């Protein structure tokens, strides 16, 4: 028994329990990795909540992801799944095509999109130009950088779409038949049969989306790095590029990375991570407490 659990018990203590306790301790210190930690009490938190102007920006940008990116991805995936469920022919091939981009490694996908949405010569703006529309500056414009990340996010929505499609196809046929007998049109069938039946899966997708939004890093880091390099044509831009352009892609994890691993302010980065821990824990708690309810729902469908 203990033998089965031993590796995980060790792993849990070393890679989960210890760092969380240690993060709280470090957050009360000034620590740059070179000299030993120096106790500063709540100074890091005071700076975080009242002085650091970037925290507000990072929180706003992260909330933007929760409010725009997550719903956009869920609705888009749902729309495609619903259309796929109605298709008579070619479901398999369509499903493969829509799923494929979700597999593309995030770094590679982001690189591809920075090129495709390249304002001057990228194919999207070239196409828009042929239609007489002058396209936006995409990743180069603070107002368009986040929407560009949404475009990238919608392209990679395949996982959610596959889950939705499976759920939609699982809705018992007789529910639709009786609804039809009652005179329900397509919209009413969608509203009163399909959506309630798959609501647990939708909730699951939203929850997963929020959790991923809280840790959104790779795409932001790569897009900012490549786009800023493109603009300046300088060789070494990594350090200055975080959040490019003008902190519009400075999400909370990017800020944490900047303080911890670009400036080596381990104490302040720990304070940032403790705040993130509390927020994620609150979100998680809400989910776990409610999970019984929707898992039960899921059981009831089948």
């Amino acid at each position: 028994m203990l033998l089965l659990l031993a590796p995980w018990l060790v792993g849990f203590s070393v890679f989960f329990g210890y760092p969380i306790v240690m993060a709280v301790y470090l957050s009360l210190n000034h620590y740059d990795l070179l000299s030993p930690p120096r106790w500063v009490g709540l100074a890091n938190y005071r700076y975080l909540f009242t002085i650091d102007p970037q925290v507000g920006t990072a929180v706003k940008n992260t909330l933007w992801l929760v409010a725009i990116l997550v719903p956009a991805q869920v609705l888009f995936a749902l729309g495609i799944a619903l259309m796929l469920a109605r298709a008579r022919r070619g479901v398999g091939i369509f499903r493969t095509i829509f799923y494929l981009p979700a597999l593309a490694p995030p770094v590679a996908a982001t690189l591809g999109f920075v090129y495709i949405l390249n304002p001057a010569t990228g194919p999207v703006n070239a196409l828009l130009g042929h239609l007489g529309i002058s396209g936006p500056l995409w990743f180069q414009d603070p107002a368009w950088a986040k929407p560009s990340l949404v475009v990238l996010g919608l392209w990679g929505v395949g996982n959610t779409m596959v889950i939705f499609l499976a759920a939609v196809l699982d809705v018992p046929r007789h529910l639709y038949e009786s609804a039809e007998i009652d005179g329900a049109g397509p919209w009413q069938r969608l509203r009163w049969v399909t959506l309630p039946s798959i609501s647990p899966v939708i909730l699951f997708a939203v929850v997963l989306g929020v959790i991923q939004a809280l840790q959104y890093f790779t795409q932001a880091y790569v897009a900012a790095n490549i786009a800023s390099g493109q603009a300046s044509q300088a060789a070494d831009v990594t350090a200055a590029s975080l959040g490019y352009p003008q902190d519009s892609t400075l999400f909370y994890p990017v800020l944490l990375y900047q303080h911890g691993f670009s400036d080596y302010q381990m104490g302040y980065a720990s304070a940032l991570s403790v705040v993130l821990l509390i927020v994620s824990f609150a979100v998680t708690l809400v989910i776990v407490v409610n999970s019984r309810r929707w898992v039960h729902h899921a059981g009831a469908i089948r």
Partner: protein
Amino acid sequence: MRRKRFLVAVANHSFLIAAAIAFLAPFLFIMLTSLMTNEQALSSRFWPHPFAWHNFVDVFHEAPLGRWTFNTLEYSVLGTLGLLLSSVPVAYALARLRFRGRNLMFMIVLVALMLPPQVSVVPLYVMWAKLHLVGTLWPVILPNWFGDAFSIFLLRQFFLTIPEEYLDAARVDGLGELRVLSTVVVRLAKPAIAAVALFSFLYTFNDFFLPLLYTGENPHNWPLQIGLSQFRSLHQVQWNLTMAATLLVMAPVIVIFFLAQKAFVEGVTLTGVKG
């Protein structure tokens, strides 16, 4: 009525086809650009003229793709092996054995599943720095050897579906729990174990944040994703070669997908419906 249905079906299919083209277009643009000359990649022309096939040779001279691939494979193979060996027993214990604190442990797995890696990253970085392992891939490989929350969760869900009679039959034959696990359970759970291994491979192949943290300063140990992200700034390389490298990094995942498509879609569905 029938006419209307037909029109709706046509509209539905037209929309699907349009969406499919939009989903495939980025792949096509990346592919076309990877075959252009540098001057052409900087123009707004769509079609390569002439086709610059040598880009796929040049890209290996511009960047140590072989070295990066080796590093990625080291991370993927060692990580996935350790993850399976450590996660299967825990998942089995959580699914089929009765002991005090089991539900609490499962709750902890769920919480661990949902917390961002950024939460624990600072103290862990300090720990690995003290062990002089920053700059290597060990800080991302070793934690896999001590159980992975997502895999434990997925395997547990599958183990719950194995009928108790199979296990009892083995126990009556005098097998201990460890033998029951290594013979009966592992054999029955092959599809789930394969799915977990597949997900782990993909995760390690695509992983960026932690490898960047630990190997960022040491190009010798960069896995593919870090190398690719630094590709342009490294040599001021051209877009055509960057897109060729991008395509090469996408290719293995897509090939694996077509080889194991069924396991994939089933695995993804399992994560969602049983969630």
